[in-house]
């Protein structure tokens, strides 16, 4: 392919194909049939996927050098140049394949899922636009374009969460999602500003080249307090990642984002966009390696999210919310992996998670179609009888998620836990227990969900039961195609990605200070050995314990969960309220800023400035005017021009 076309043409085609599809269906959608709308957008994304494979083949399998070129100058100011450009290395190549593959699956799936929706074409336009934005994000060669893509995916997420714009809960959720993300972006843009100030460039390569010189640089933010520059930069940038990748306390938008149609929950809120933060930190590894403080901060945030958000998954009854909290928890795992400098493991988990979590969401969507848009798992049960393909693929996804030995999730999650174990940072100690107990929690809520949906008594009403059937092939095909990598991708890629030189220069690790990954690689003797070894380790038995408990509670003794709930009611309430995050935000930030605005408006503007200063003077003038008014006719229009001409004539007359 690259013989007849230049690299740039191929990369541009990857980016532009979905954009063109999106624009065409977005603007001319009203003149198109549904079939035409999905044909155009799917062709675009399919082309991107094929070309992504070509790029992967070229850069990875044929080991061609990285590509780093600017395409056009966004703007120049003083001696600074901000460009739009592409950096294609192993990290980008992998992201391209993952994003385009999941996106293609979701596009196909949408034909079935949205078949009867009025917004069919609009939806296709949005998800293609999302794909374009995500490509721009991962292909960027500089911080500014990263921010472009970063905000653009946020925009599409906003549009898609609010897709059912008549629903009050949906339009509440999309506003919330955008604003919480903006809190993250607030930190992010300050981080970018700091990078620009000290490195005088926003180009990745240039910044990473200079970074080591700034290892000991200090910055004075509070008068008299010297802080490490790299720590400040890394934490500011990470705040952006916390917004996008939904890390506590900026995680609050993700559960609500489930208001959007299920295909986008899979694509945006599980597989791709929410992993942008993980991608970003991995991309910035040369910076993060310079600050143990920032890494420790990341570990704490990730561990907190992994553990506490997992707990919330246990009590959810909405099928999508269980998966959403599971996503939060898994993002926490990735974040912890970043914190212990095992960027490649984080990205590895990002990839395996993208496949099995997209699978789980799409399977949940298939269940929702079958159930006629009932999402409460208490009204499901024994669906395996009616939806065999959904059942089998869900089983695969669930086993991958809980880390069943041999499936993709096992390799990535086990590696994370081991990496945390070997980390020398003090923060990793507590994180180790968090990610360990997370294994039990994950297994528990996943199996609970699986049992309640697919096994046990049929709890749905007669009407729904009567109509229950397997979803059409456009829905099941993506499930099957996603199930394959959910099984095999870990086994296939763990060796090159974690212990080979897959990432080459894309990821930098200071393995003296942060030895986790190098210790891991010494004890790694192939995938099979890892499986057999895995059977003897604590995570495996915790997983078994989780599965068994869920099985016991929801199959053997189904009356027990209710009793336990009654026994620990306060804890249950705490979990049900999401630890109070939402209430606090509503009370403090939402209502608080409205109150503040009202106060400033009525006291500052209306009372002080207008009431005292302006109207006081106005009254004086009005009194004065009332005297003069007697000699006026009130034709403002005539008067005004007389004034103008009078002024000019007078000036000329007097001055000459």
């Amino acid at each position: 392919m690259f013989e007849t076309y230049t690299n740039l043409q191929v990369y541009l085609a990857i980016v532009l194909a979905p954009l063109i599809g999106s624009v065409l269906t977005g603007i001319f959608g009203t003149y198109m049939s549904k079939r035409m709308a999905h044909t155009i957008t799917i062709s675009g994304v399919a082309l991107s996927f094929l070309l992504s494979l070509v790029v992967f083949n070229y850069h990875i399998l044929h080991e061609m050098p990285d590509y780093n070129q600017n395409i056009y100058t966004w703007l120049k100011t003083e001696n600074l140049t901000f460009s739009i450009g592409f950096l294609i290395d192993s990290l980008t190549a992998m992201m391209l394949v993952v994003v385009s593959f999941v996106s293609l699956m979701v596009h196909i799936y949408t034909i079935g899922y949205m078949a009867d929706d009025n917004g069919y074409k609009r939806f296709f336009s949005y998800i293609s636009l999302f794909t374009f934005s995500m490509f721009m994000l991962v292909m960027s060669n500089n911080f500014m374009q990263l921010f472009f893509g970063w905000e653009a995916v946020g925009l599409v997420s906003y549009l898609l969460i609010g897709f059912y714009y008549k629903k009050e809960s949906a339009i509440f959720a999309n506003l919330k999602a955008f604003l919480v993300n903006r809190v993250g972006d607030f930190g992010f843009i300050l981080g970018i500003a700091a990078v620009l100030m000290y490195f005088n460039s926003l180009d990745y390569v240039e910044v990473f080249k200079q970074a080591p010189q700034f290892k000991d640089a200090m910055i004075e933010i509070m008068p008299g307090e010297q802080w490490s520059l790299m720590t400040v930069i890394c934490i500011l940038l990470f705040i952006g990642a916390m917004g996008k990748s939904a890390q506590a306390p900026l995680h609050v938008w993700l559960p609500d984002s489930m208001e959007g149609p299920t295909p986008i929950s899979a694509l945006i809120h599980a597989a791709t966009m929410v992993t942008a933060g993980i991608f970003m930190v991995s991309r910035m590894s040369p910076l993060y390696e310079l600050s143990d403080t920032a890494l420790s901060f990341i570990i704490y945030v990730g561990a907190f999210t992994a553990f506490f958000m997992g707990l919330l998954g246990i009590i959810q009854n909405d099928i999508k919310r269980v998966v959403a909290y599971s996503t939060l928890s898994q993002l926490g795992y990735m974040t912890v992996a970043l914190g212990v400098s095992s960027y490649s493991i984080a990205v590895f988990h990002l990839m395996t998670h993208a496949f099995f979590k997209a699978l789980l969401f799409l399977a949940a969507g298939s269940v929702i179609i079958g159930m006629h848009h009932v999402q409460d798992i208490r009204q499901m049960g024994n669906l395996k009888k009616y939806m065999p393909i959904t059942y089998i693929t869900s089983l695969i996804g669930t086993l991958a998620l809980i880390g069943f030995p041999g499936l993709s999730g096992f390799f990535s999650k086990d590696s994370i836990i081991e990496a945390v174990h070997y980390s020398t940072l003090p923060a990793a100690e507590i994180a180790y227990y968090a990610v360990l107990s997370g294994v039990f929690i994950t297994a528990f809520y996943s199996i609970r969900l699986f049992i309640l949906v697919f096994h046990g008594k049929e709890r749905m009403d007669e009407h729904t039961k009567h109509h229950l059937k397997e979803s059409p092939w456009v829905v099941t095909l993506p499930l099957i195609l996603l199930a394959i990598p959910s099984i095999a991708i870990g086994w296939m890629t763990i060796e090159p990605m974690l212990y080979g030189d897959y990432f080459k220069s894309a990821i930098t690790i200071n393995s003296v200070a942060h030895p986790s990954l190098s210790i891991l690689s010494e004890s790694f003797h192939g995938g099979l050995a890892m499986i057999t070894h895995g059977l003897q380790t604590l995570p495996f038995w915790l997983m078994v314990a989780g599965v068994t408990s869920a099985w016991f509670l929801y199959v053997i003794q189904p009356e027990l969960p209710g009793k336990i709930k009654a026994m620990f009611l306060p804890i249950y309430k705490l979990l049900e309220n999401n630890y109070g995050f939402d209430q606090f935000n509503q009370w403090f930030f939402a209502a608080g800023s409205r109150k503040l605005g009202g106060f400033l408006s009525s006291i500052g503007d209306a009372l002080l400035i207008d009431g005292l200063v302006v109207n006081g003077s106005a009254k004086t003038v009005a009194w004065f005017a009332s005297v003069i008014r007697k000699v006026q006719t009130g034709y403002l229009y005539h008067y005004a021009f007389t004034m103008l001409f009078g002024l000019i004539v007078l000036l000329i007359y007097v001055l000459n």
Partner: protein
Amino acid sequence: MFADLPLLSLVIWTPIIGGLLVLVTGSKNAVEAKVLSLLISIVTFFFSLFLYTDFDTTTAKMQFTEFLPWISNFHINYSLGIDGLSMPLILLTTFITILVIIAGWKVITFKAEQYMAAFLILEGLMVGVFAALDAMLFYVFWEAMLIPMFIIIGIWGGPNRVYATIKFFLYTFLGSVLMLISFLYMYWHASQINGVGTFSILDLHQLPLGIMPQILIFISFLLAFAVKVPMWPVHTWLPDAHVEAPTGGSVILAAIMLKLGGYGFVRFSLPITPDASQALDWLVIAMSLIAIVYIGFVALAQTDMKKLVAYSSISHMGFVTLGFFLIWQIQSNTGATAGAGMGLEGAMVQMISHGFISGAMFLSIGVLYDRVHSREISAYGGVINKMPAFTAFAVFFAMANAGLPGTSGFVGEFMVIMAAFKANFWYAFTAAITLIVGAAYSLWMVKRVFYGEVRNDNVASLQDLDGREFFIMTLLAIAVLVLGVWPDPLLEVMHASVDNLMAHIQYSKL
């Protein structure tokens, strides 16, 4: 073929004379008057395009200069010329005026020819302000410009227009009188030093001034320009004026008239009183930061759409004044001035971008007002169900207002935040709060007005955009998008002039 024509005079006087012509001939046939007005505005825009195509980006010298003695005893001249700071603003003016005339096409039925004429005359006068190189000429345009604006608000305005105009007048009058006195002082001062007085702005840039006179002049300029921008705390006339003004008036007010204040800072305050600017930069920075945050929260509390967008304008203009005055703080923080140019250019871009976005926002409100006759947010809800195309535009412009990358709203804010960080972490921190608050008030309004179920019968009977409205929205959307995706051509025009300005700023007059 046009290179030898006095282009600036053409751009100034075509709409003024044309406007008078419309006024004289138009009373018989309103349609004729509208067509004629549209033609005049298009011809004017056409002339102004040559200012761009024939512009020499390599020099900071004034271009397209014209010079005629006017009142020679006092060395007052009809002296015109533009550089990279004023040229984009002139193009903005001629572009927006066309849209305003199209926007008033159907809505204005009462004395339509006077309405159109007022906007044309206003256009010429505003271009005059941007093009004047003589302080007195500047002053005449500056004051004359208020008259058509008064008329526009006074005749086609809302019920409370008298209060609004008095407030508007009071504020503006205070500042401009002091500005006039400053000009007269400098004329006298120049004649003391050089033996001959001058009102030439470029000469005033070179005029040596002691620190005390500089400070007094700076303060009088500050009053004049801060009212126009408007800066906190002299901003309260703007929401009232907007609320009372007809849609076209609001558009011109927000898109162009506010920029006159910003332009005043770069043409007068900074180069004429550099030392006073340095001494008082903290004041302007503080006022700007307060505007950005305080006004952002005030915007959040508004229930009237026009007031909300008016406050949002004030908050956005805070970036303009912040960007202008960063140079000394950057110098004291980093030891060099690198980054100050980015702040200045970012502020200029912010002005142009805000012209498009605020214009679009007010036009959008006008679209709703024309149909429902209410500006209250609570009078709407679920507009998207009836006006999907319009909603698409409105969401886009709201996003641009919230500074989404890829729209013009991002460029200026981004540059100013980057520059502010170099001056002081906390400046950038405070300015960046707009990322959150700006999104909050813009999108919360979108949620309440556009999303949800159809709220009431008024909304239920709404018709989507007609061809005319669609055309205006499309033009603005393209402008916002192009400037956001590729701002470099605009920046390129400014570089030489900004460099020159930087040199002036750093050159002490003491």
